[in-house]
């Protein structure tokens, strides 16, 4: 049974991929490509199961228009090798190329997101061609209040540069390295850790 069916040509599979890479269950991410192809990627507690063509299928799902996609829960019974999602996504993204039209579609999707908080758990940046661009995303998210993906994409017209930034966003989005920024009330009478730390944060930002 296929859940979460999406019928339009877009990158909606990213939302599902993000969810299934974050969850603790086991199952199969499956999709139909607009070109007629299909693919499946088995995922066990956020790790990608290394079976026939998993990496190629993941790559297809990120580089081609997806007609519909879904998630089917599975029981994993046999032994299998698991791939770490960060390294795998990096390998896949390093080799992907998006057309101008794809870039525009992706850009429009990311422009809709609200203020984000970015995590810096990319230890393996050496292997990621866009590691420096990731660092720019991270630094800007920390230094600028009200930082959104739109800020990161604004004014980027050059195809290569836009593609680089989009890869960084796709990686961070799918791996859950970007999250909607929580709103913390800055109030001197609120003695919770998050309130105190948020006040310090504002102050340091202003130095």
């Amino acid at each position, binding site marked *: 049974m296929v859940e979460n069916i999406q019928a339009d040509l877009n990158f909606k599979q990213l939302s599902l991929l993000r969810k299934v890479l974050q969850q603790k269950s086991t199952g199969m991410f499956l999709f139909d490509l607009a070109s007629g192809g299909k693919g499946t990627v088995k995922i066990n507690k956020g790790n990608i199961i290394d079976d026939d063509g998993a990496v190629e299928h993941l790559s297809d799902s990120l580089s081609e228009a997806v007609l519909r996609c879904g998630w089917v829960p599975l029981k994993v019974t046999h032994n299998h090798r698991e791939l770490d999602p960060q390294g795998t996504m990096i390998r896949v993204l390093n080799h992907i190329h998006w057309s101008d039209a794809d870039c525009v579609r992706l850009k429009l999707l990311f422009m809709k997101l609200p203020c984000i908080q970015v995590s810096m*758990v990319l230890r393996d940046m050496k292997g990621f061609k866009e590691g420096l661009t990731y660092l720019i995303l991270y630094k800007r998210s920390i230094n600028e209040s009200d930082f959104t993906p739109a800020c990161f994409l604004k004014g980027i017209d050059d195809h290569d540069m836009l593609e680089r930034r989009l890869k960084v966003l796709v990686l961070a989005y799918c791996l859950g390295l970007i999250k*909607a920024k929580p709103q913390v009330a800055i109030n001197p009478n609120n003695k919770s850790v998050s309130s105190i*730390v948020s*006040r310090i*944060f504002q102050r*340091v*930002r202003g*130095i």
Partner: protein
Amino acid sequence: MSHKKDIAKILITGPFNAGKTTLIKFISDEQTSGKDVQATDALAQYKSMTTVGLDFGILHVDDELDVHLFGTPGQARFNFMWKILSKGALGTVFLVDSSSQRAIDEGKLMLEFYRDLSDMPIIIGATKRDLPDARELGDLACELNIGDTVIIPCDPREKDDSKMLVLALLQEIIAQSMDFDDDLDL
């Protein structure tokens, strides 16, 4: 009428010559440095001036709140100071000179020691990446055995980098103290 301000504490630590004193200067409104004295022991071959005692800085946040920044001396034999100071601290910025094998070896031991002692949030700043012998970030992370700890390349001589390290630590602390709703659907 005077009233008592709240005080939050942040520690800046790491092996010798990493940039700790430099960072505290940028982040403080008032600051007293431990004495930078001529290094005498085996350190002298790496560094001519080193901090003896604590670096201490105060950052005024608002009428109700100050931050105290403590720079603990950068040699493992002073770990006991970190142990004392870490009580009630929000977190630690741990700086390490990525171009010095001796600093990296020492850093690894210090990190182990800290992790055994407390689960206080730590972020690592990899400094001196502009120097010829600097390790790649990934290699440095391995050598230091950082696990899931965040590591960020930086040059504390740049004010923005010093700020970023402290902001990164604060963001980690906020993240740990909150639940996120995952509502980021595209």
